[in-house]
């Protein structure tokens, strides 16, 4: 560590370490990129990629994000944006869960999709995208659908779970699993111009409130579809909730729901 600190002190711009010097740390100390990022942050230096975070997130808290693990259930409309934003934020480990492959109708909104990606695994696409934009992040792709039976394995060591699913029954099972495993869950859902988001802490009944008897597997999205901007908006709210949970800052949407209407530009903040 002393040799590392000496190198960083010599090369850093103040306490900010450029990407080229991050690479030098990897080379000189035989570290992979995530380990080098851990070492740089632990030494009190900030990788330059996070310079624009620092007015909001200190170096110490950036290290906390790097040491956090977030599971994203679904790598489609919501999931693609959530994964992108959490990777750029600097969450150190992501579990990207999705059994599906891209289809042509995903192209209107799914950030990880492209014509070249049709037929390819969504979870693996998430791993490739994160490796491309922030190789300091480790992604575990899980190409098996979430189920109560797989929850303990998928969510081992996870600090927060993000709901980016597209089914009501799956969401209710996800809420139950997170409650049993005592992991916070950030819920989001979309339909046409509309969306909703909230945070569910273990023991909260919020999703039972939202989905009533859960008798229907789908909602109004069956009729309305999903344009590109709605998942981006709701996913961004979800990413912000994740950040606040991990940093223990700000006000969470707990026992509350944000109901978003992009057609009329209205947001209803429902408090229970």
């Amino acid at each position, binding site marked *: 560590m002393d040799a590392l600190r000496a190198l960083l002190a010599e090369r850093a711009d103040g306490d900010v370490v450029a990407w080229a010097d991050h690479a030098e740390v990897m080379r000189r100390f035989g570290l992979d990129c995530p380990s080098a990022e851990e070492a740089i942050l632990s030494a009190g230096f900030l990788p330059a990629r996070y310079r624009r975070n620092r007015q909001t997130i200190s170096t110490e808290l950036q290290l906390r994000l790097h040491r956090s693990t977030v599971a994203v259930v*679904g790598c*489609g*409309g*919501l*999931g693609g944006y959530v994964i992108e934003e959490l990777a750029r934020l600097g969450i150190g480990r992501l579990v990207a869960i999705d059994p599906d492959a891209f289809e042509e109708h995903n192209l209107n909104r799914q950030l990880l999709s492209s014509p070249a990606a049709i037929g390819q695994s969504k979870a693996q696409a998430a791993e490739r995208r994160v490796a491309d934009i922030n190789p300091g992040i480790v992604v575990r792709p899980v190409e098996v659908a979430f189920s109560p039976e797989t929850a303990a394995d998928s969510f081992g060591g996870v600090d927060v779970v993000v*709901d*980016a*699913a*597209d*089914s*009501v029954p799956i*969401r209710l099972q996800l809420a139950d699993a997170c409650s049993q495993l005592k992991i916070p869950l950030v819920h*989001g*859902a*979309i*339909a*046409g111009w*509309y*969306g*909703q988001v909230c945070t569910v802490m273990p023991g909260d*009944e919020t999703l039972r*409130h*939202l*989905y*009533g008897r859960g*008798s*229907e*597997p*789908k*909602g*109004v*999205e069956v009729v*309305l579809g*999903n344009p590109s901007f709605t*998942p981006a908006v709701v996913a961004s709210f979800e990413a912000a909730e994740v950040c606040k949970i991990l940093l223990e800052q700000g006000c969470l949407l707990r026992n509350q*729901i944000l*109901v978003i*209407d992009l057609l009329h530009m209205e947001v*209803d903040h*429902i*408090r*229970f």
Partner: protein
Amino acid sequence: MEITVRLYLTFRTGRFRVETRECPAGATAAGVARDLEIRDADIGMVLVNDRQAELEQQLLPGDTLSLFPVVGGG
């Protein structure tokens, strides 16, 4: 009796956002929804006076009933 009904998202289309309505004494949330031609299966969250409620809940004079559609996409 008089109650206030708040509708959200797609339920507003062709109906209203907030309305004070007359309904029979002992009316339930389900009954009000039926009168508004809102299908049970389409209803996600039901609030009465900002508290989670079941569709079968009987309403009292002055209650505020809020109905939300199921939003399930991702």
